[in-house]
């Protein structure tokens, strides 16, 4: 949270040095990069958006049910008929859907600057801050009262960071540490990304931070940037983070890399869905307008997108053509 505001200040000061006419466009691009679409019509939680995101995440059972680190036991065997086997696969898929539930994408929480009272009399009485917490069991954590009495005498509401720490002390959550572990520092994240362990980092991040906190968004952004830079899209496929990742890319209008990766793996339907999502989120873009005009479907959507918006138009068109030639022109 502090880091985020610091970088924002840095960016702003940098702008002040540069020419004034560039500032507006720069600000626009930064807002597009950092903030999530709250003013647009489509939200992350829309059913259509969620439907598309779940479909492009895929459902590879082997990857979803990867062996986790735990005490091993000898396996159990069952003799099943074909119908029973299908039933078991269906049950596994249901559990997989439950495991693939996406972590929420929320707007960043606003800092708390509420001062409840200023008592000059108490100045100098204590040398440390005192934190008063309401530890009633049936109060939701977001509505808990946590106030801080400073040595200067002011009684203020605790900041988000302090709130998270205090709630973890009194109501510890499994896996969460009071101080964030050093893996979330930038230099350590770089090491972890080199080992292709993005999924582990994201799992730990979801456990450690609240979904609307600045650190959460920061770590998520760093991970997404690294994956986008190196093209390691397959690492997150069939995990619960793919939806958030695709949403981030679409908001930033940078779906080319992901599209190319999908086309290389012959995931035509996923590519089409991705373009449809793009058009949903950016209805003012050229490809969306052309698509609406022509009422385009399936491969035509891809072609329109390639024509108007994409930087890698050649590759996309070539891929679409080869698909049309090699596969029989059957309906999707």
């Amino acid at each position, binding site marked *: 949270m502090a880091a985020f505001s610091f970088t924002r200040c840095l960016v702003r000061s940098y702008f002040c040095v540069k020419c004034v006419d560039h500032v507006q466009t720069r600000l626009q691009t930064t807002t597009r990069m950092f903030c999530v679409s709250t003013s647009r019509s489509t939200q992350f939680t829309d059913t259509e958006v969620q439907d598309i995101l779940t479909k492009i995440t895929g459902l590879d059972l082997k990857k979803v049910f990867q062996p*986790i680190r735990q005490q*091993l*036991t*000898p*396996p159990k065997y069952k*003799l*099943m*008929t074909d119908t029973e086997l299908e039933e078991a696969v269906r049950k596994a898929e249901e559990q997989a859907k439950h495991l693939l539930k996406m972590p929420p994408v929320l707007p960043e929480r606003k800092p708390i600057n509420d001062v409840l009272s200023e008592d000059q009399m108490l100045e100098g009485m204590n040398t440390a801050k005192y934190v008063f917490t309401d530890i009633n069991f049936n109060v939701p954590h977001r509505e808990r009262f946590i106030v801080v009495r400073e040595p200067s005498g002011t009684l203020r509401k605790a900041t988000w960071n302090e709130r998270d720490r205090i709630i973890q002390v009194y109501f510890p959550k499994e896996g969460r540490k009071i101080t964030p572990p050093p893996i979330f520092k930038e230099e350590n994240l770089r090491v972890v990304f080199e080992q292709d362990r993005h999924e582990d980092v994201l799992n730990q991040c979801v456990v450690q931070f609240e979904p609307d906190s600045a650190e959460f968004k920061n770590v998520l952004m760093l991970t997404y940037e690294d994956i986008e830079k190196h093209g390691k899209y397959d690492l997150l496929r069939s995990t619960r983070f793919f939806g958030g990742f695709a949403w981030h890319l679409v908001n930033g209008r940078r779906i080319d890399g992901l599209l190319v990766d999908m086309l290389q793996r012959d995931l035509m339907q996923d590519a089409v869905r991705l373009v449809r999502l793009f058009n949903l989120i950016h209805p003012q873009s050229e490809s969306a307008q052309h698509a609406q005009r022509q009422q385009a479907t399936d491969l035509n959507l891809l072609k329109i997108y390639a024509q108007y918006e994409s930087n890698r138009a050649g590759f996309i068109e070539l891929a679409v053509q080869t698909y049309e030639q090699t596969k029989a022109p059957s309906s999707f």
Partner: protein
Amino acid sequence: MAAVTRLCCVLRLSFEGVGTLRALGGAAHFSHLARHSAPQYAPVTAALQQNRHSSFFNKLTADELWRGVLAESGAGARKGRGKRTKRKVKKDLNRGQNLGEGRAGYLWPGLNSPVYRDGSIQKPSQRGEAEQKEVTAALERQRDEWDKRRKTKIKRERGWTGFSWGGISLGPPDPGPNGETYEDFDSRVIEVKSVFNVTAKESRKRSISALVAVGNGNGAAGKFRCIYAINDAKNRAMHYLYYIERYNNHTIYHDIESKFKRTTLRMKKQNKGYGLRCHRAVITLCKLIGIEDMYAKVDGSVNLLNITRALFHGLANQETHQNLADKKQLNVVEFRAEQGALPIVVAQPQLGARKEPEVEDDVPNTRLHWADVKASQGVKRSVWAGVKRTIW
């Protein structure tokens, strides 16, 4: 003169100047001395003692002498009556001797020194005193070194315990008659015991019985028991190999209970990383077969021969997943705890699965063992019950 010398050879005049008679090599010296002293003294008031030039030491060969000293085939040695600690070792005393080398240090051309030197034939000569001392000292040192080397004990590899032969590796079996080598096979002794057979001639005849197992760590293993020689057992074991199927190359397919005579061997399938928690003989055999994770319990008699027989019979009669699928005409599906509810199809019947599902009772029809139940419920009162080991 001749009579005097002969007299002095046989008799020894006991007065100062002549030392006591010593058997080895003394005769020549004394005759020499006696020759000098004979003309001075008039004989024969002193006591007569026998003096010999040669004794039985000179008349017998080295082998015969040693046989007498060692007494290997005496009545005491037979039937196990010999005392264990005293055991003399035969030593070759002629080692290091050269023809021509002697205490006086004469150089004989052709024997000690070269015949020709600078073109001329050499004459016999003598070494200097210092040189002779050096030569004798060098010979002494060499003999000491040989003795020391003979006395150093070669450390025998330790088996299951310090003295036992069980678990000791004998290396790969010898190559076969057609030239095939068995380099990837390793052989281990399971049991060596001395076995007595009563014969008509000698009452008890002792032989050594050895049970040796060979294996290549990849499913091929065999065992053989031989009465005469361990090496023989090792080579013959190659003729009686079993091929044992393993699941994922680290464990058995299912729990096995095999019984042979009065020995029951209960084997349980375990996950990877469990280790071999079994009887030490079973551990040795499993390592040869290539099984890495298993639990086995030996009930009843702990006779090693019977344990090995039970193990091999049980493992050879395992039912692989494919066999089970074909027998029951159903798919064999594996569920692992660390992978959640994912069904992994391990074997499918060749002719396709049948339509009727397997009938399962509410209470599974398995026979439980009281020891296992106690262990799983924590009721077992044994100091070794919950012990944590790092090496298995």
